[in-house]
């Protein structure tokens, strides 16, 4: 069995930042492996360790700068990586769900995996829609917000739990091939070992342009246009205690005594 995992490098933002136009000024931005994808990679690697998967391949849409993040996923145990990038994607400030679906479905077609794992959402734009959209596009089954996956995949069926709201889980059987969107907490993502990091440097990282995967530029034209970005107005009317930790702790202590919290 072959597993494809979508891996995104997400932008992280410092506590204090400034907005320039419709973007956060670059000096306040960092980059990291999307948290949800980290769990998806771990789940795939565990399936491989359980002897169920022969190969774990990651796919990323992103420029060369994100190769360090891709190497992180390889260091954790993925076998090889595909990275899709193109000059045509350079100037796009928001790659919408439709464009991501187009690109990823072309890679899925070429790789022909039995199982695709994605994160539930990306930590930066948080659409939470690409996995299910991709499944529909490639004619696979799917399950969104999966927080448990039985590792036997008996008879081509994945037994999963979907994490609903309010502490309720739905038990669902999903036919393979399928796309599952993986929720945080499904496993404990490992730290890459030094050996893993060394090996990752030698693993195959294949770079594809849109034309290589048979996609016309017009197919990725964004239908959703980001027109404004601003800091939400703070609605805070909190009483702020200032001073040393002893002073603020003492203020809070007074409040708690006033509320009858403690003796």
């Amino acid at each position: 069995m072959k597993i494809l995992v979508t891996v995104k490098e997400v932008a992280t933002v410092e506590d204090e930042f400034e907005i320039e136009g419709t973007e956060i000024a670059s000096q306040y931005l960092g980059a990291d492996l999307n948290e949800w994808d980290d769990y998806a990679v771990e789940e795939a690697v565990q399936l491989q360790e359980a002897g169920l998967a022969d190969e774990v391949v990651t796919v990323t849409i992103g420029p060369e700068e994100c190769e360090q993040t891709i190497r992180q996923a390889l260091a954790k145990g993925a076998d090889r990586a595909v990275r899709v990038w193109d000059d045509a994607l350079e100037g796009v400030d928001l790659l919408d769900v439709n464009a991501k679906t187009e690109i990823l479905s072309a890679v899925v077609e070429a790789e022909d995996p039995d199982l695709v794992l994605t994160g539930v959402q990306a930590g930066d734009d948080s659409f939470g829609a690409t996995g299910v959209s991709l499944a529909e596009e490639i004619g696979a089954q799917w399950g969104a917000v999966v927080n448990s996956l039985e590792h036997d995949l008996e008879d081509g069926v994945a037994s999963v739990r979907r994490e609903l709201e309010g502490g309720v889980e739905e038990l669902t059987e999903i036919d393979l091939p399928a796309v599952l969107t993986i929720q945080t907490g499904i496993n404990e993502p490992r730290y890459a070992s030094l050996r893993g990091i060394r090996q990752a440097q030698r693993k195959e990282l294949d770079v594809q342009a849109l034309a290589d995967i048979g996609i016309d530029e017009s197919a990725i034209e964004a239908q959703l246009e980001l027109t404004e970005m601003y800091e939400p107005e703070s609605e805070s009317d909190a009483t702020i205690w200032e001073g040393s930790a002893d002073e603020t702790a003492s203020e809070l202590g007074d409040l708690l005594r006033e509320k009858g919290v403690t003796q």
Partner: protein
Amino acid sequence: MTDVLAVTDHRRGELRDVSYEIITAGRELADETGGDLHLAVISGTVDEFAEKLDREGVDAIHTVDYGEEFNHDVYTQTITQLYDELAPQYVLAPNSVNGLDYAPAVANELDLPIVTDTIGLETDGETLIATREMYGGKVETTNELEGEAVVTIRSAEWPQAEGTGDAAIEAFDAEIDEDAIGSTVTGFEEVGGGDVDISEADVLVSVGRGIEEEDNIPIIEELAEALDATVSSSRPIVDNGWLPKNRQVGQSGKVVTPDVYIAIGISGAVQHVAGMKGSDTIVAINTDPNAPIMDIADYAIHDDLFDVVPALTEEFQ
């Protein structure tokens, strides 16, 4: 004319609140150009649901009596057929776990753009302006879309529709292709049970990502002990296995309403806030003065929890 088709949400025999909120959101969009608001009620006790959903502003309710519980294939097939029949400008769905299990498939099947987790919507009948957050709520953005679209709305952002409506309630004859149904729900399970029920606590000392390491959890437990309070947490702490699931406050955990909620190193993501905003008094201890938790805090300390928490514990020992 901006007709809107809004899909309602139910689970285990109960309509979820967002079903009433989506009526408000849909009515507002339809009103801007004098269009109609259609509701889709799919699976479960649809006639009973339809009667409850017939609130002010609903023009038509389409019921599909097929199966008891949510199945994304049934929803996807039904909604695409309703879309073909009604030709609405916008399909609205809740940004719930189930909404995200069919809305993207509906959009892709219909070749429509999708915008998810919206917190504000406007239209002139042609251009949709959707407000949504990015970077975990650090910024808000406006996004424009031309023409038809699938849109999911965040829960608790629109008020629930009230009153009694005069909607035409009709059974919609959906053709469900059973061969295309590739998943089966086999059951439900309540999780997060056990010895402690945080929703019963009067005082919660709640810990978040700011605690940094599992080894630091004891300083929170010591404070809770000194205050005779109960320890709870935000999601990442439970995801990391540092505290059990029954301690988790938020959308996928417990909803709590204690007298005092002390949020320590919790930024206040919307999913967390949904679970604790009903607390009587909220105190936030966080180094980031712009953290969203500050918006709902009654008292705040913008300082390092590793300094403040031990000092507070000492006060009460």
